């Protein structure tokens, strides 16, 4: 439970908020001409690298959320580990069920996976446009559009990752 939450906090704070979003803003400045740098090189060395590090962990985070956060886990540690077998036959399942009724955990995971897929799509779209046709002036608007889409989806993912708090844990 604690480790899952640490991973969530690290992905949200260190990777999405502090690396992916600033890297996208920098790319927008490069494409709009206010910062001079090689857009393809910067895109690959920042956004592509950060996403390669983030995406597998995000997938694990959303897939394992229900199992890792379930209050059922309290029955495998002190003090509820001492519950008699007759109680363990019904209470852990009931507690899990009530928890799912109170919190839309499955909805949170589904929305998170969709947002991550949206970021993935935006990154691959922006990357392809940059590599194939960045030097053509008429393509710059398309690249900018793709980067703005990436900025929007990354912000959405960052907000989503911060939606789980202590109230979700019980």
């Amino acid at each position, binding site marked *: *439970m*604690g480790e899952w939450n*640490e991973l969530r*906090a*690290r992905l949200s*704070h*260190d990777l999405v908020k*502090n690396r992916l979003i600033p890297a996208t803003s920098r790319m927008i400045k490069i494409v709009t001409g206010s910062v001079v740098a090689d857009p393809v090189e910067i895109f690959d060395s920042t956004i592509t690298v950060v996403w390669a590090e983030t995406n597998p962990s995000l997938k694990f985070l959303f897939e394992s959320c229900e199992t890792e956060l379930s*209050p059922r886990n*309290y029955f495998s*540690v*002190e*003090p*509820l*580990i*001492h*519950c*008699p077998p*007759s*109680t363990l036959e*019904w*209470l852990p399942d*009931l*507690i899990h069920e*009530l928890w799912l009724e109170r919190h839309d955990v499955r909805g949170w995971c589904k929305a998170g996976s969709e947002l991550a897929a949206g970021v993935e799509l935006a990154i691959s779209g922006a990357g392809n446009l940059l590599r194939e046709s960045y030097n053509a002036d008429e393509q710059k608007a398309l690249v900018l559009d793709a980067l703005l889409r990436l900025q929007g989806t990354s912000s959405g993912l960052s907000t989503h990752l911060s939606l789980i708090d*202590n*109230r979700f*844990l*019980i």
Partner: protein
Amino acid sequence: MTEKGQILIIDSTGNRRKELCELWSGVLGYDVLCYGGSDFIRFQSNDKLKTISPDELSNIRPLACLFHVGDHSKYKNSTVKKLVDSSRRVVMFSGVGLAGPKPGWPSSWFWIPRAITGKGSASDREWRQLGDWLATQTSGSEDGGSLELLSVRKRPQFLTALYILCQGFLAAQRMPERFPVAVAETRTRDWWSVPLVKSAGENLLNIVTQEWGTEIPDSVAKLVNWIANTPGSDQTELAEIVAEAKKELESRIAK
């Protein structure tokens, strides 16, 4: 300037910087200087901010510097570096907590393991204890380290267990057709005490009180006393107490 000394807060996250400044100035009574990336400000209240002149800055020797990890690059700025280095102690913090020192930190710097997102990341008592420790003299060249005073908060195991048992009791009473055996079982003292007293021994009330942190509500105290079979607790009206205790536990655990 107060007699307690000066606390320098370096943090570019505006809301958190404001909260920490209010805490160290208004609640704890220190002379607070802060830096978010542009000017050094003396914080007296949200309406009373005063830019510190370079002359004044050169004479400041803070008691401590609370330094946000994400702003470490500001240490390259010569003025920031001078002020940080002249602080009696440097304490690094982060919004997600810190497991250890980062490369490039001097060995004398401390770090806070717990995530610091604002005033609420520690109790007033813990902040005061931190202030008291910062006020102690350093013994020559002190080695930095993890500040265990603000270690990662442990989840309240017994409060959570008690909350889960309350849920089980109430569900069994509400849905007797689904849990026919549990209706009577959950009304017995053994059902509650076997897991809790087996782990806590005779200290159940003390442990629950400690996890609660402040004064424990009447309903929770009554329930715990009944579970622990404290003399005089026999008359407890279980259904009423459990419903009330569950509500109290729910809001406490969510904090």
